Structure formats: structure tokens, C-alpha cells
């Protein structure tokens, strides 16, 4: 039985499931709103939510896509008992998660949320070229028109509030100095690119797409500012073996076996930008006929 940890509304998960169904593989899908109780029956642990119930030893492989396995925690009246029972429950939960993560898996709940700053440091350690970057609360050291800023968060969206619509924080080139200080922000050298490369990585294999975003003012700095009237040209691309080997070492050091990785090609150099473990890959997979979703289903 395959365990899929995802969300109720998640198109990529549906596309992988389409392949699982065609391969006649059985699966359990966990949604983001499920809280599990840990129970035992004849020495076998199982977990149960309002819509799922399964023994841990039934699970043969796990795909961590989004969300996570969450647990119902009991609270106790006496503070001392509550403190002890909090730890007791913590270790049971930890055992469940570690047991599931010890199975054949694609990414893990415990390591899937990566710190962008840490990833850049690890990328440099394995020898990947990384554009110079720094953190600052002012623009004193910012070279105008050759420095970008972008969020250090995984989620670059701001949900609608008050009079604001849903917003997205694209990578932006800094064109003017700020008078005031601001909350610590991430700045990075802007690289003049020949094109961008998005690589879907799965167990050492890369499925790369060259994205020709540099000739369109709208997509030049961030290709996700999609030009729907005249889309960027996307074509299959083979990363050099040396870059793929470095990427493998990076993914191993981050304890990841799946992710979408962004590079910039500039002259002879391949600059590493970031790895997104929960990123969308269906678009490039479809355009380049990679069937990455089939590769996931086959592995599980």
C-alpha cells in the first residue's frame, strides 16, 4: 500500500494518482485537515483519522507531497502530568513519522521544508556556482540595477486581506535606494542570463527544461510572471554531467530525493538559484513530454 501525504486540492497529486490507477497500485491519500490518533491492535500500531485508518506495517512506500501527518494531542489537568504526557505522546508520534520515513519514499515530512539560506551554503560546499548574496536591513550595500531581492520563504504568496487581492512576491531588481531601514531582506547579485533551467530531480535523475525568458521584459527577471499572450519558449535540456553530479551531492546533503531545481545559464556558467521540494513540475513535464508524474508513480 502506498501512502500519499498531500492536500485535498492538489492537481499534481491527482496526475500521479491517474498513473497509479493505471498501474493498479493501491494507495491511501492523506489530506491537510486530518488529525490522527495512534492506536494499537495485537501489538500492531495503526493510525486513524476521520477519513483514514491504516496499520504502519501495511505501508510499503510513502510520497510526501504537501501538508503532513498531524496528530491529536491529549491534554491533562495536572501540569506535571501534562508535561510528562506531552513528551510521551511526542515520542509515539516521532516513532510513527520515523517508521513511515524509513520506508521506500519520495521526500520526507521531516526534511522537505528547506531553508533557502542553508541550501545556498550547501550548494557552495558541493561546488555549484551561486550568485553572491547577503542579508541587510538597508540598501547601503546594494548595487542598483544589478541586485535582486526575493523572499526567503517557501511560500511567495500573500493571501488577500482588507482591500488587497492575493499577491505574489516575484524576484525584483532593485532600481533605487531606500531612505528607511526595513525588516532583514535577502539580496543577490543579478546574473545576466542566456536562459533559465528548471530541473525536476528524482532519485539522481534530472528532467531539465530550458526556459527562454530573457527576451521578454515581463519574464526577464522572473519567468513566473508568465506572459500568457506570448509564452516563453521551453525546450528539453541536458545539464552537463558535472552539474548533475554536484546536484546529486547537494540533494543528498539536504536529505531530499525529489525537487524542482532552478539554474541560470550565463556564458559557460550554471548558477544555482534554489530547490523547491513542493514545486509545480506538471507544466514543464507536459511541455517537454517528460511524464515526471509517471516516474513518481513507477517508483512508489
Amino acid at each position, binding site marked *: 500500500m502506498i501512502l500519499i501525504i498531500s492536500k*485535498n486540492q492538489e492537481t499534481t*497529486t491527482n496526475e500521479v494518482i491517474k498513473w497509479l490507477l493505471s498501474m493498479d497500485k493501491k494507495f491511501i491519500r492523506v489530506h491537510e485537515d486530518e488529525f490522527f490518533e495512534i492506536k494499537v491492535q495485537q501489538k500492531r500500531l495503526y493510525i486513524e483519522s476521520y477519513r483514514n485508518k491504516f496499520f504502519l506495517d501495511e505501508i510499503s512506500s510513502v510520497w510526501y507531497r504537501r501538508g503532513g501527518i498531524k496528530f491529536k494531542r491529549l491534554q491533562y489537568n495536572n501540569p506535571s502530568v501534562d508535561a510528562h504526557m506531552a513528551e510521551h505522546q511526542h515520542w509515539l508520534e516521532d516513532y510513527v513519522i520515523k517508521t513511515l520515513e524509513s520506508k521506500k519514499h519520495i521526500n520526507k515530512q521531516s526534511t522537505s521544508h528547506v531553508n533557502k539560506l542553508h541550501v545556498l551554503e550547501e550548494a557552495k560546499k558541493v561546488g555549484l556556482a551561486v550568485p553572491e548574496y547577503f542579508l541587510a536591513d538597508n540598501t547601503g550595500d546594494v548595487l542598483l540595477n544589478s541586485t535582486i531581492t526575493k523572499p526567503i520563504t517557501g511560500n511567495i504568496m500573500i493571501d488577500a486581506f482588507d482591500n*488587497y487581492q492575493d*499577491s*505574489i512576491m516575484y524576484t525584483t531588481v532593485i532600481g533605487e535606494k531606500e531612505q528607511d*531601514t*526595513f525588516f532583514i531582506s535577502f539580496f543577490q547579485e543579478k546574473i545576466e542570463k542566456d536562459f533559465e533551467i528548471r530541473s525536476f530531480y528524482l532519485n539522481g535523475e534530472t528532467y531539465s527544461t530550458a526556459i527562454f525568458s530573457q527576451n521578454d521584459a515581463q519574464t526577464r527577471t522572473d519567468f513566473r510572471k508568465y506572459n500568457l499572450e506570448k509564452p516563453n519558449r521551453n525546450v528539453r535540456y541536458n545539464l552537463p554531467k558535472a552539474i548533475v553530479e554536484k546536484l546529486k551531492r547537494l540533494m543528498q546533503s539536504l536529505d531530499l530525493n525529489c525537487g524542482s531545481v532552478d539554474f541560470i545559464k550565463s556564458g559557460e556558467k550554471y548558477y544555482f538559484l534554489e530547490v523547491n521540494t513542493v514545486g509545480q513540475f506538471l507544466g514543464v513535464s507536459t511541455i517537454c513530454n517528460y511524464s515526471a508524474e509517471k516516474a513518481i508513480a513507477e517508483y512508489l
Partner: protein
Amino acid sequence: MKQYIKEKHKLPLTFKFAEEFKAKNADKNGGNIPYAKCEKYQSDFLMLVKPFKSLVRML
């Protein structure tokens, strides 16, 4: 953002460049895609119609 956000603490510079997108691109991105509940896929959000995907020029 076009309007100034009032907050008690300072915000990262990325907020200054955040762009509202939903209203502007909802139709083009297929914002009104119909979904169905589907036991087979164990989801309440199986897309009934796939969003419009532009043809992409090849080399």
C-alpha cells in the same frame, strides 16, 4: 504593493514589490475551473476541465 500596508513592525523589502494577481489573471489562468468529488482519486477537487495551456514554440 500599490497601497501602503500599515503594520506595527517593519516588513522585508519584498512587500514593496508584491503584485496583486488573482483578479487580473483569474480568467486566463482558468480561475473558474469546475471540480468534482471523486472517491477513486480520494479528492474533492478533481479537475473536470484542464486549464488552457498555450502551445509553445519549439526550437
